């Protein structure tokens, strides 16, 4: 009698375990399927660009792959100049953004003022201001300053987009460093600046690197201002050069341009991918705290 009950219980347990295993397998299959589809959809246009970049001119016809379109991109188009412009603008925008945002973030996260929270929210809201509300006036500002059709106009204006995000993220990264460490350093005789440089800076450096990469990505991708302020081929960044200059012209250049899109897309995605976990963590802390 007892044996029967035990056997029934054992069988029931086995059944439950099997059910759980099936369910778990189902979850795993779903996760893999969704992940595969998501990756494919996200990469789809670039995969297509990559495939067609090595195709000879005639679509569908069977030919050996060719590198002529990729070579044309670097020899017959302004693409190298666009890339250099974007690197220069992006690099300078990162410098300007960090110079403005780091002290501001320090003030918001460390120097407890009654207006701190409100100032932080106001700065974040600036990020939501749509550039189309500003580009007509800013193009007058840029022209008045004598920066029209110069990459310096972008160095001046792009931080309006990147500073608000950076202040907000850097403040979150700074909050993640325990205040006690800094206070201890000050008690030990370091000045506020010394404590920041010796104790806080090393801990917050990865966050600063993450913000720098994000700032560069945003600056490289900005379209509206670049389209409005710059009209000479030689000064265009990579976000407006290819669509404005290569789009209308020679159909053969379309394939070259497609390979150009891939050349830009891959490094930016890899760069941001390196810091993805850091962003998620700091946003998580932000959701906890604020």
């Amino acid at each position, binding site marked *: 009698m007892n044996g029967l009950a035990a056997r029934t219980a054992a069988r029931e347990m086995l059944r439950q375990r099997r059910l759980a295993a099936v369910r778990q397998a189902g979850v795993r299959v779903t996760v893999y399927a969704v992940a595969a589809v998501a990756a494919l959809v996200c990469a789809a246009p670039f995969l297509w660009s990559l495939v067609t970049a090595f195709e000879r001119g005639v679509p569908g016809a069977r030919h050996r792959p060719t590198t002529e379109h990729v070579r044309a991109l670097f020899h017959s188009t302004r693409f190298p100049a666009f890339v250099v412009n974007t690197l220069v603008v992006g690099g300078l925008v990162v410098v300007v953004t960090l110079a403005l945002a780091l002290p501001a973030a320090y003030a918001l996260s460390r120097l407890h003022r009654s207006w701190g929270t409100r100032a932080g929210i106001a700065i974040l809201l600036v990020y939501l201001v*749509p550039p189309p509300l500003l580009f007509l006036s800013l193009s007058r*500002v840029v022209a008045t300053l004598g920066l029209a059709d110069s990459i310096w106009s972008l160095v001046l204006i792009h931080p309006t987009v990147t500073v608000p995000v950076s202040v907000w993220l850097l403040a979150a990264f700074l909050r993640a460093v325990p205040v006690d460490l800094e206070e201890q350093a000050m008690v030990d005789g370091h000045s506020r600046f010394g404590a920041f440089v010796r104790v806080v800076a090393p801990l917050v450096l990865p966050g600063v690197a993450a913000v720098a990469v994000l700032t560069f990505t945003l600056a490289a991708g900005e379209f509206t201002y670049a389209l409005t302020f710059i009209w000479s081929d030689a000064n265009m960044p990579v976000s407006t050069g290819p*669509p404005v200059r290569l789009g209308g012209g020679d159909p053969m250049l379309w394939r070259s341009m497609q390979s150009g*899109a891939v050349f830009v897309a891959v490094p930016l*995605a890899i760069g941001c991918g390196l810091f993805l976990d850091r962003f998620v963590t700091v946003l998580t802390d932000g959701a906890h705290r604020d």
Partner: protein
Amino acid sequence: MSGTRARAGDRARLTDREGFLAWAFLLPTVVYLTALVVAPFVLTVAFAFSRSTGDAPSYRFAGLRDFRTVFGDDVFWRSLLDTLALTGVAIVLVVVLGTALAHVLRAGFRFRRTVRTLVLLPWTTPVALSAISWRWLLGSAGVDRMLRAASLLHGGGSPLDRTGPAAVAVVAVHVWRLTPLAAVIVMAGLNSVPHGVWDAARLDGAGVWRRFFGVTVPLTLPVTAVAGVFTAAITFADVAVVRVLTGGGPHDSTQVLPTLAYLRGVEGGDIGAGAAASLFLLPLFLAGAAVVLRVVRRAEADR
């Protein structure tokens, strides 16, 4: 005793210095953003009541002339509706797909790193270049060719030259581009939910869907709202997708307010009319700001 008093004195002096430091550190950012965001906005409002053109940009007051021009423009009404519809549809799709993607990206699986990098592509690539790639994929050498081969497309004109499909393509590219951003934001929201909450719900007998709609959704609602606001703000401000993918066509059927403002204000040279058209983005911005303020205030009340 005296030691404590000395420390209190130090601290008072420190706070005084903190007050000064806080101002000194924040001032450059405040000045910069005031000069290049707040002031230009005021200037845009002023331009909307002016006779300024690209050739004669100096300010001449013109009353409501620009608004009469804008209201008499059929393309304006079309752009206004398109902007609202595009933003609404994009918010819903991006939030739903982004939430699904966030759940999957949190799960452990092989090739996770590769998948995450690929999933970031739409958001990190300069949007105009993405639009170029999509145009190539949807145009004559790609989807168009396949559809014709399968006899699903007849007659002249690729999908991007047809009114309905062109509008769908614009929405699709926006959703494609912003879903990864929403996924990252929602992932952060999911991480901040303590694991015990789900376990407790499971012990209480709640199934997968019950746990999702009864626990996950309410707890991540604030962060989902923020994801929605960012999606909206980036979508209704975007010039690149429409400009590069469809050029606003066919027959201005896919124009949105930002591209119209560019078309009238820069290419047409009528700064006043362009500024007046762009001002209709202001209510959308204010709505987004209101949602953010509400989320922040509620989070403060919870604390």
